[in-house]
């Protein structure tokens, strides 16, 4: 047993962190709230291998593990990189692979969708099927939508999306996660079976947990830096235990979450001793609690400035709230874990 990052994993994390620092600085990220997704930078993510990381090698992917994906997604979350990162990566990893049947969809076949997601030429959103009006994330940014339900995965391309009269919300909760209200979703064309849909949800929860880990860590870093330089009563506010202890609680949540998320990634890769489905549920439960709590605490440590648009604290909190609802929320997974406990 060795639960430390390997040298390759550390190098991977550093290279993605460097890419984010250089190409997804917070000013660039913020500009996408008004300018929309920067497709050039999205392609750079693809060229670095973000979307093809877990795509099998025979399909042109890097064939790496989900543990590596977790390490990468932690950095993307920390940098608040916007867009449907998890859905696009899942599409590249699971849709239209060489060993699965190619499914014709309107315009594109499933192989083209998977390849396009990996190369960054197709941006893919996702939604769990629901009745009645539903909120679709990134409706104006994406080239297609994967709907997951109990029967499988279903593809809806952008022409169909336009045809269903999506109404974009003027004020999305997270300015970097635009949402549109769609009165009724079309059925779409089936591109994967129910087993794949199950994996889609599970790996989606894993990647989202990793993003939330990065968000929790980023919100904590921001608060700690502020507590070191902001002075009141003649000393840095971080010297006061009321503030220091809040920061200690934040990093404590981050470290517990990191253990859970890394363990889930490793276990999904078959290098663990636990059930992978259970490990992912653990990670998502912890992530939904920790990311939002660290986001709120970061706002609080910043005082009045924390409630301004200018300071980034609210961006972490809002993204944490968005991710909590992706691929099943904390309550869903807590209920799943309780089911295991009560049947044991």
């Amino acid at each position: 047993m060795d639960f430390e990052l390997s040298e390759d994993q550390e190098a991977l994390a550093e290279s993605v962190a460097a890419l984010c620092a250089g190409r997804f600085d917070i000013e660039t990220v913020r500009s996408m709230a008004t300018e929309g997704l920067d497709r050039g930078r999205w392609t750079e993510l693809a060229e670095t291998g973000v979307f093809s990381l877990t795509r099998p090698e025979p399909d042109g992917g890097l064939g790496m593990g989900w543990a590596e994906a977790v390490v990468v997604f932690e950095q993307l979350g920390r940098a608040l990189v916007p867009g449907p990162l998890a859905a696009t990566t899942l599409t590249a990893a699971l849709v239209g692979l060489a060993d699965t049947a190619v499914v014709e969809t309107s315009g594109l076949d499933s192989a083209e969708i998977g390849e396009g997601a990996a190369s960054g030429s197709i941006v893919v959103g996702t939604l769990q099927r629901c009745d009645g009006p539903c909120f679709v994330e990134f409706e104006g940014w994406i080239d297609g939508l994967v709907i997951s339900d109990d029967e499988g995965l279903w593809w809806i391309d952008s022409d169909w999306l336009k045809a269903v009269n999506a109404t974009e919300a003027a004020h999305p909760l997270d300015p970097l996660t635009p949402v549109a209200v769609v009165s009724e979703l079309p059925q779409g064309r089936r591109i994967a079976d129910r087993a794949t849909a199950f994996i889609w949800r599970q790996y989606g929860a894993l990647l989202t947990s990793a993003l939330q880990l990065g968000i929790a860590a980023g919100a904590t870093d921001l608060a700690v830096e502020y507590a070191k330089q902001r002075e009141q009563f003649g000393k840095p506010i971080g010297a006061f235990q009321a503030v220091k202890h809040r920061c200690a609680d934040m990093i404590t949540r981050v470290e517990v979450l990191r253990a859970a998320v890394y363990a889930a990634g490793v276990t999904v890769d078959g290098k663990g001793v636990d059930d992978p489905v259970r490990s992912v549920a653990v990670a998502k439960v912890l992530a939904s609690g920790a990311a939002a709590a660290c986001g709120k605490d970061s706002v609080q440590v910043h005082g009045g400035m924390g409630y301004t648009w200018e300071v980034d604290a609210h961006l972490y909190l809002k993204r944490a709230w968005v991710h909590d609802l992706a691929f099943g929320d904390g309550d869903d997974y807590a209920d799943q874990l309780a089911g295991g406990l009560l049947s044991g």
Partner: protein
Amino acid sequence: MDLCYTEAEEAFRDELRAWLHSVLPDVGPPPADHTDLDARRAYDTQWQRILHEAGYAGIHWPFEFGGRGSTPTEHLIFLEETERAGAPYVGVNFVGQLHAGPTLIAEATPEQQRTHLAPILRGDHVWCQGFSEPGSGSDLASLTTRALDDGDHYVVTGQKIWTSFAQVADYCELLVRTDPDVPKHRGITWLIMPMDLPGIEIRPIVTALGTGEFAEMFLDEVRIPKVNRVGDHNDGWRVTMVTFAFERGTAFISEIIASQRLLADLAKIAQKVTRGAARAADDAEIRRRLGRLEAELDALWSLTKRNVSQAQRTGMVGPGGSVFKLAYADTRKRMSDLAEQILGRVGLAIGDTLDLSELDHVGERLYALTLTIAAGTSEIQRNIVGERLLGLPKDR
């Protein structure tokens, strides 16, 4: 990152399991009377002797000092398996095994090591800890128990507190003030005090749980030979700190495994008791609380493995231990709250849950109070995490 155990680690586990399976039936349960410390000592030291005979004593002690010299991961497996098998706890051997012994290994003279280490491993000698004082808790370095220099002896007078199992101990690791006129950390000396010296009086302190392993210790001109000093005169604070470097992330492994068992048992109770018209297990809020606690304990087990892996690579854990302790104590307190909610009025008695359970959830609820206090309060842990891990400024 790889959470699978190596073949050698699995072999170690299999051998240990088989051994536990063969010896535990003859060990029997611990003495029922919590207040009978002589019986506690006899039971705990008997287990230590059994471990010693089988080569499992001092699992983490270096081989040259009579230990097994196991890796941190093997130490983790040892604690996991002994807890799962229901083996006795370290009990009265805690200070000798985990604190005084490692300190002697790092800092004592070869003569002192020859005298003390083997008897600790064999379960012949029980140690207690004379660090805290009524006026020196979290601010340990302010301790005032005086040691006057009298030729080849120190003459020690003062009061110590929380000296658990002092009533049945043979030796005490004692911190004394040898120089009151220098900054507090620089005037402390670390001594080995035989507990049969004249001038030592021990009074038991009864815990909130009603048990009696706590004690306070009054020292009245106790003459301790200078050959019993470990480290230099006035160098006791450094000696004390060295001991913490022995922590390898394993401190709470038994606790985590035991907590998982407690939670699984709570889930069983929730299927037997009702809440309103339905089973407690069907209550959505109780289900979610069970699920969240299950997730937290699982994450803490993963964090333990991270800390142990770090110790295996670098030799130490650092503030990761404080992070763990903070989170674990918090989780256990919320487990207590859930136990209260599920047990209802059955929670009005300690150690008697009718026919609902074999476990004492009410006693555990009281025990959980110690987790944010003992071995550095959560407030002190937050200072450590804030200052050493995050680099926040000190307020002193």
